């Protein structure tokens, strides 16, 4: 008899504990529903929609700006380099062709005298935008009317810089 009493008491305690937990859960669910309802309030929902639209606009703009920044960082400005190159050409030197591949260039042409050609090479060497200016010794063997070919490297920073020489838009 005592055992049945204790069993019933334990069962009752367990049921009460479950009921307590269920009650807490129920109250919390009610709170959650109320919070949802207050958010669904008509005037706020318009504002939320407006916020959503602005956020979408901002996200779109940020994405475009990010694209533009990456494109701008790759942009090369050859026109300034042509001006620099042409300034280095002394009298008596005719450049017949310029061909570039990545950050290197090949210039071919004709020099009236060896001194003119050396002056051209020196002028290119003294320009910080050019490096490794290579004029084969074979091109310096003749004294005048020299057909030459100069290989050089172009400074990446010079090519990416849009400052100086030509007017900006």
């Amino acid at each position, binding site marked *: 008899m005592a*055992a049945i009493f204790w*069993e019933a008491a334990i*069962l009752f305690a*367990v049921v009460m504990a*479950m009921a307590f*937990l*269920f009650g*807490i*859960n129920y109250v*919390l*669910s009610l*709170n*959650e529903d109320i*919070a949802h309802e207050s*958010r669904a309030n008509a005037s*706020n929902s318009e*504002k939320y929609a407006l*916020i959503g639209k*602005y956020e979408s*606009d*901002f996200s779109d*703009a940020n994405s*475009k700006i990010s*694209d*533009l920044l*990456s*494109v701008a*960082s*790759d*942009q*090369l*400005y*050859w*026109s300034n380099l*042509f*001006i620099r*190159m*042409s*300034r*280095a*050409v*002394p*009298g*008596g*030197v*005719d*450049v*017949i*062709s*310029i*061909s570039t*591949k*990545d*950050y290197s260039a090949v210039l071919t042409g*004709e020099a009236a005298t060896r001194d003119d050609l050396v002056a051209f090479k020196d002028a290119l060497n003294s320009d910080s935008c050019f490096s490794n200016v290579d004029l084969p010794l074979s091109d310096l063997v003749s004294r005048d*009317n020299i057909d030459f070919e100069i290989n050089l490297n172009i400074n990446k920073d010079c090519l990416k810089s*849009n400052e100086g*020489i030509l007017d*900006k*838009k």
Partner: protein
Amino acid sequence: MKEFWIKNKLVIVIAVYAVLIIPGSYFSARLFLGRIIDTSDRIQESIMDDKLQESKISDIPRMEEISNNIGKNRDVMASMIEESMEIGFIKSLETLADDTGNEISLSVDDPEKDKATQKTAANSKDKQAEKGIKDSLSHAKFVSLNITLSGGYENMVDFVHKLENGKYYVNIISVDSRKNQQQSGSVNQGSGGIFINSGSSGQTENPSSEGDNPENIITTLSAVVYLQ
């Protein structure tokens, strides 16, 4: 058997009770506690969201102002052409060539080749040092264009300068410029190089200093036109 039952009835009943009630209580309690924790988390999230939304609502005037500014500057951000704008862009290049006194012809590289280059660029960004200009472009969507110009040196530089600083981003990857010997005669006839200031250093900015034959350079620009 009957005797065993009579002797151990109490123990058996308590054992069966314990076996049923302990796991039953444990799992029910876990279930309810789990639901309570979930609901509580959702409420906390909801409270945080509300606070965030409230701060955003108070920011609406500022957001509106920024949005208006974005709207005003939308043209500036449209610096990459859409695929539907390609024809218009080509026409703008022709107009630019006319304005700068060049004759122009255009050709487009094989799009499949471009896609392969773009794939390479997208897949192997870690090998920058080994790659050429085109392979290391950050923006993977572009069309390769070969622009052939015929005109004077000053005209060519003017075209390139305006192209580089134009509304749309066009990146010139390589340049091949050579004197048109068919027009100018033999190189050895001393008709001048491609630079107009040969022998007169520092005069390049002045268009009036063009050589005798302004139509003496053929330039091929290999360029990429970025797409949105």
